[in-house]
């Protein structure tokens, strides 16, 4: 039941990414609502929810946006290992900054892979464009969105969960 809810939520997030997100652009960047939802699912549901949600989101978004689901899946792939690493490594960082770092890095990976795919199919992208219009604008957008979403979560008393995969959980 909980798995079905996670899958449904991420399908809705993918639909919102192709219908709602393009309506609110910042320059030439659009908010990554799909990634934000996946990160929040991880924060609330833990690692198993991300394990289930990542392929569901990649396939849904790939189908809806006519992009390669495989490429999107590879883009979202670093989420879990990175979050787990930040959990276990003794870096003095609050849970919020751990989540923020994870989201920014995964956002960069997804955008970078999509930029490479566009270049391989004939788009004339330069390094400057990729850095400024794709990477930097995306990073700012992702950080702002996560911060906006994090406040109500803390307000209702939801304690972020660690994204470390526990031995024997699967």
């Amino acid at each position, binding site marked *: 039941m909980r798995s079905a809810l996670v899958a449904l939520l991420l*399908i*809705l997030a993918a*639909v*919102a*990414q*192709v*219908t*709602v997100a*393009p*309506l*609110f*652009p910042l*320059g*030439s*960047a*659009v908010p990554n609502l799909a990634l934000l939802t996946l990160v929040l699912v991880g924060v609330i549901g833990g690692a198993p929810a991300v*394990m289930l949600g*990542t*392929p569901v989101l*990649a*396939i*849904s978004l*790939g*189908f*809806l*946006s*006519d*992009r*390669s*689901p*495989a*490429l999107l*899946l*590879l883009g979202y*792939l670093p989420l879990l290992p990175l979050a787990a690493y930040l959990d276990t490594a003794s870096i003095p960082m609050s849970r919020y900054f751990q989540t923020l770092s994870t989201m920014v890095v995964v956002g960069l990976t997804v*955008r970078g892979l*999509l*930029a490479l*795919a*566009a270049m*391989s*199919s*004939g*788009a*004339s*992208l*330069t390094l400057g*464009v990729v850095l400024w*219009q*794709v990477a930097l*604008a995306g990073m700012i957008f992702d950080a702002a969105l996560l911060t906006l979403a994090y406040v109500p979560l803390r307000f209702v008393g939801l304690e972020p969960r660690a994204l470390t995969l526990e031995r024997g959980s699967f």
Partner: protein
Amino acid sequence: MVGLALLLAVAGQTGVLNPFQGVFLKATSPVSGAFNGVFRPVASFLADAGDLRAIQAENRELRLENEELRALLIEGQRDSERVQELEEALGILERTGDQTLVAASVVSRASTSFDSVVSINKGSNDGIKNGMVVLSSKGTLIGTVTKTFPDSCFVRLLNDSRSKVNAEVQQSKVRGVVRGNPGRTLTFDLAEADVKVGDIIVTSGLGGNYPAGLPIGRVSEVSGTAQDLYRKVNVEPMVRLSTATTVLVLTSFTPQRIDVSGR
């Protein structure tokens, strides 16, 4: 997970996923419609509120343009009547209905800094095929069909950085290529003669992928010096591609070379 990605890559290349994608698009279209219905007016209101001054100025310009167009319309009607009279006198039969258009609504759009793709609610069941030309409701070129399903299809818009259209200046017939650029902008490249701000760019028909004479946009900026081999020419599309909600697919024109590969 990497194994699943590889499996998906292979399935995507062989087209195994296409039927599933068609079903998924059909199943999610009511949700897309609901999201569009709720959020589009909000976005439109916010955009208008931010551009109040620009809208007022545009309104004044449009009123003036409207008056000029009314005068031209009356003149055109007179000319049309005259032409009809002459054709009847010469026994020329006017060909009508040689263009078939299918109207469709934009369901969703995938846009980043370098790509701009929309999906519409008509597909192969309505006679739409890959490579067909897509126009705005005002008849200007906005893109090309890249992938079709029975009830929907994907359209790559002109401002996608993978889009290229052979075009010419309507007045001077100077030829070039209209290209989508990162940041969803349009440029008129490789024009070998002077192009002025305000010139109208239309399709040239070269290459056979688009019919000749379809309006694309208006030249908004020309930069560079007279010594440059090619100047940088920015083009403003006739319609706002990011907010188009109704489009027309030109089903009567068959492109000679279909090149819609790349995702």
